[in-house]
């Protein structure tokens, strides 16, 4: 056959076969090197990637600690809600999935996309919650279309519930997703992005105790995310339950009274013996339940764009002139500094002249000759102009500060602002100006430069009540560390002065007379219990300016603010507080609100049935507003 190999061919073939053999061997050697690089040199990286493929760590969120009132009643609790989340690494086409999810649940697609975009930097295996607190309908719709929704998971999580809705909303605060700024701070170490943390009130102040420790379970899944087996499970640890000093009955009474009155404002009620906060309100309030499962953007916008600022905690963060409620501080300063005695008298003819300027008393005809007790009872401006003038601003400042005004109360809630009681030093430092003695006259009746927060007014009332101990108001009574509620140590008082009983007695007599002796606070009277108090009607702007401003800004409320500070019973008081009505026109209106609080308190003490929530008519509010009309008397004058 011709095809047999001749030697020439043989040589060429052998050579070419060798070329083939060496080529193949070289290729195999390269392959071996390639596998060595992946399997040996980069093994750890790929091993981790393989684990990420098949292992899923599913967080088991810890329920937050419940909040109890002082009698053990549950104020804030948790309930399971369904969150719908996305695990992006299981989603091939994110856009399609979000579109389908939006169609199935009725949530705007743009909102879903925003949520994902905001957290796009996080690892793709970590779920991003898209719909918090999903409805049953949404859950069913997602389940029915689960094949079109790869990567969409529904998880049951405990969410905060506030059974009494907006009751004490500013005290409890609200929860929300931890912010980027918070994650940077050391106290949020170990908190995962997307975690729910306290964002205001007790929820924020005691977040660490309340949060608990999230658990997790690790499961093996296949590429369709079907769970194949569970490897380990770590159950979550519930946060510490906290017992508050709050008395839920008194809290409800406070809010009921505000609702009946129809005014905004703030009230703080404390136990003057130890500083325990019994009731705490700020109005208008919000419903913290709206935040519990992630606040809807529309609801958030409504809250933040509201001119009345419902998110602002007026008890801690708003400052107003105290008006006539400041008078007991001036009276006590006069006694303590020895510039007056309880029997010191002043003749009030309706106005008085200081430093060439006429200062009017609120009572046009004047009070006649008044001593300290009557001056407090009747809230005589001329008497306190005179005493204030004799004291000078720095002595007023000294005693007001010792009583708790113009300083922080250091309550255990976040965001407290400090009020102001002026002094020559203050004016020099901030305005670089000398203090004029004429300025002291207005301050003596709680107008002018002085302003205070409602919580500091509650401390002031408590200090007058307990004889000079500036207690530290606080909210938390006990914490449960897992072995039952353990009382927390009481915070020490901020300062303590020894006021001589007879001097204090003169002030107390006056304040008793305000309520029980035909004074301006008669509406706060409780039969059988010696309520002491002081009303205050404080101008928002001076009466002269008010008419001009009102013509210019028709929508702005320039009506006077109403104050009432109180403590009871007169001897060995157990309750003290401050009620503030924003644009409440008159101090006596605040006394009407305080009446329901005190009536509820003493009904409880006496073991009687609690009074029903008052109606608007029950409060007999005074809506007279002489300065609203053009032609009102335009003189400097403090209210009642």
């Amino acid at each position, binding site marked *: *056959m*011709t*095809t*047999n*190999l001749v030697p020439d*061919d043989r040589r*060429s*073939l*052998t050579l*070419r*076969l060798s*070329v*083939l*053999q060496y080529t*193949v*061997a070289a*290729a*195999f050697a390269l*392959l*071996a090197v*390639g*596998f*060595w690089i*992946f*399997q*040996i040199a*980069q*093994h750890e*990286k*790929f*091993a981790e*990637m*393989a684990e990420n*493929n*098949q292992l899923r760590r599913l967080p088991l969120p810890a329920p937050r600690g419940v909040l109890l009132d002082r009698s053990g009643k549950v104020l804030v609790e948790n309930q399971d809600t369904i969150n719908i989340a996305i695990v992006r690494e299981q*989603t*091939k*086409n994110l856009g399609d999935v979000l579109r389908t999810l939006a169609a199935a649940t009725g949530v705007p697609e743009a909102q879903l996309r925003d949520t994902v975009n905001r957290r796009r930097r996080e690892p793709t295996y970590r779920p991003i919650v898209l719909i918090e607190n999903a409805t049953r309908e949404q859950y069913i719709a997602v389940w029915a279309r689960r094949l079109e929704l790869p990567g969409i998971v529904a998880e049951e999580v405990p969410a905060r519930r506030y059974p009494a809705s907006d009751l004490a909303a500013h005290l409890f605060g609200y929860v929300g997703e931890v912010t980027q700024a918070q994650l940077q701070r050391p106290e949020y170490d170990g908190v995962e992005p997307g975690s729910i943390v306290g964002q205001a009130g007790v929820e924020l102040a005691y977040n660490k105790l309340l949060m608990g420790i999230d658990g997790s379970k690790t499961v*093996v*899944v*296949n*590429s*369709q995310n079907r*769970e*194949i*087996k569970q490897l380990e499970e770590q159950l979550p640890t519930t946060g510490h339950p906290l017992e508050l000093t709050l008395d839920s009955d008194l809290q409800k009474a406070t809010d009921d009274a505000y609702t009946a009155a129809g005014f905004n404002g703030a009230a703080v009620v404390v136990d003057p013996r130890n500083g325990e906060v019994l009731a705490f309100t700020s109005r208008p309030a919000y419903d913290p339940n709206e935040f519990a499962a992630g606040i809807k953007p529309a609801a958030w916008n409504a809250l933040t764009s509201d001119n009345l600022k419902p998110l602002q905690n007026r008890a801690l963060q708003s400052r107003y002139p105290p008006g006539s409620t400041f008078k007991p501080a001036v009276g006590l300063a006069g006694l303590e500094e020895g510039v007056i005695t309880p029997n010191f008298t002043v003749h009030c003819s309706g106005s008085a002249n200081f430093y060439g300027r006429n200062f009017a008393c609120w009572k046009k005809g004047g009070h006649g000759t008044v001593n300290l007790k009557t001056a407090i009872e009747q809230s005589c401006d001329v008497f306190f102009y005179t005493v204030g003038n004799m004291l000078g601003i720095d002595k007023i400042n000294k005693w007001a500060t010792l009583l708790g005004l113009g300083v922080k109360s250091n309550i255990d809630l976040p965001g407290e602002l400090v009020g102001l009681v002026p002094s020559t030093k203050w004016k020099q430092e901030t305005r670089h100006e000398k203090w004029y003695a004429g300025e002291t006259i207005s301050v003596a009746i709680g107008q002018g430069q002085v302003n205070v927060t409602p919580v500091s007014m509650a401390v002031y009332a408590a200090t007058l009540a307990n004889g000079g101990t500036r207690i530290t108001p606080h909210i938390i009574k006990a914490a449960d560390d897992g072995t039952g509620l353990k009382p927390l140590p009481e915070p020490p008082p901020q300062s303590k002065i020894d006021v001589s009983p007879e001097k204090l007695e003169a002030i107390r007599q006056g304040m008793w007379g305000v309520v029980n002796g035909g004074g301006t606070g008669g509406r706060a009277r409780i039969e059988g219990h010696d309520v002491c108090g002081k009303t205050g009607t404080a101008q928002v702007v001076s009466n002269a300016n008010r008419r001009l401003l009102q013509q210019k800004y028709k929508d702005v409320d320039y009506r006077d603010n109403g104050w009432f500070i109180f403590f009871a019973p007169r001897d060995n008081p157990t309750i003290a507080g401050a009620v503030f009505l924003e644009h409440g026109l008159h101090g006596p209106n605040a006394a009407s609100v305080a009446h329901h609080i005190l009536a509820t308190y003493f009904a409880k003490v006496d073991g009687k049935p609690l009074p029903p929530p008052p109606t608007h008519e029950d409060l007999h509010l005074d809506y007279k507003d002489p300065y609203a009309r053009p032609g009102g008397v335009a003189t400097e004058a403090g209210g009642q």
Partner: protein
Amino acid sequence: MFERRLYFHIDWLLLGAILLLSGVGVAMIYSTTYVPAPTGGHPGTQPLTQLYALGIGIVALLVCLAIDYRVFAEHSLFVYGSLLVLLIFVLIKGQTQMGGQRWIPIGPFHLQPSEFGRICVALVLAMYFGENRRGAKNPSDLIIGGVLTLIPLLLIAKQPDLGTAVTLLPVFVGVAFLAGLRLRLLGVLALAGILVSPIAWKFALKDYQRQRILTFMDPEKDPQNTGYQTIQARITVGSGGFKGKGFLHGTQGQYKFLPVAHNDFIFSVLAEEQGFIGVLGALGLYLFVILRSLEAARLAKDRLGAYLVGGIITGFAFQVVYNVTMSAGLAPVKGITLPLMSYGGSSLIATLAGFGLVLNVRMRRFTN
């Protein structure tokens, strides 16, 4: 026809290595298709199917061994013609599956004629160049050989199954090279290929094929779609480490992170479960099979035998090298199976038949 003394010239070592690789393939298919469940799990149906194919493949090998390869060569045009008929038949009436029209159903089996393309082309080219005294030194012979290769190649590419079609090229190059193709000409051909590739890119490739190549260049760009397989292949191989995760303990294939791994990515799973050691073992076996087969070509009695073995083995080697590269995520994903190990009856049967011819050439090196 089968003389008794031929029995002693069978290359038992090569045959053993081939059967060992096939057995390893069945085991890897068993592991890859095992259906995991929280309680136990159960094997898939594929290993049994592959065992049947292995049985048929051994029969095919024996047939190809028993009949003198020169007899096959004499009928090579008939064999080649039959292949073209089957390929045309597939295009008209074949069964469509996984985006290609590749299969002819025969009873319970599905025949994939394109898998037999390589031996048929090797046979007809070996015959053409072997009977030709000039070898492959003349460009006109080269063109005829090229046309013989291109006709089935285009028919297979039309299915479309570009991966299998491309495996015919190394068969042609292998035979032509052994037949004395000048290296300069080979260079010209390669250059022409490079020049034609942009045109092919534009007109011949389908969108999904272009996408695959683009993705291979940058798998992270599109990790969810076509880049997915490349990334997962690397993870599968890399996570195996030195000793591997152990038989049935691979997670990438069983949990389907690497899709249809028992098919094109069987070597990835081997790397995952048996580790670098297993990879070296398997690569060693394949290298042994290739080098030993090329020895058969060297020993061949005639040019026909040498070219036949050369064509079959170049095609085989190309498939192995490409598939193994791809299974490490180092080459674009193409439908090129790993001969002897990948799941697929037609591929296994055709490959074993091809080795039947290789053994045949070696066995008959002394006969006339």
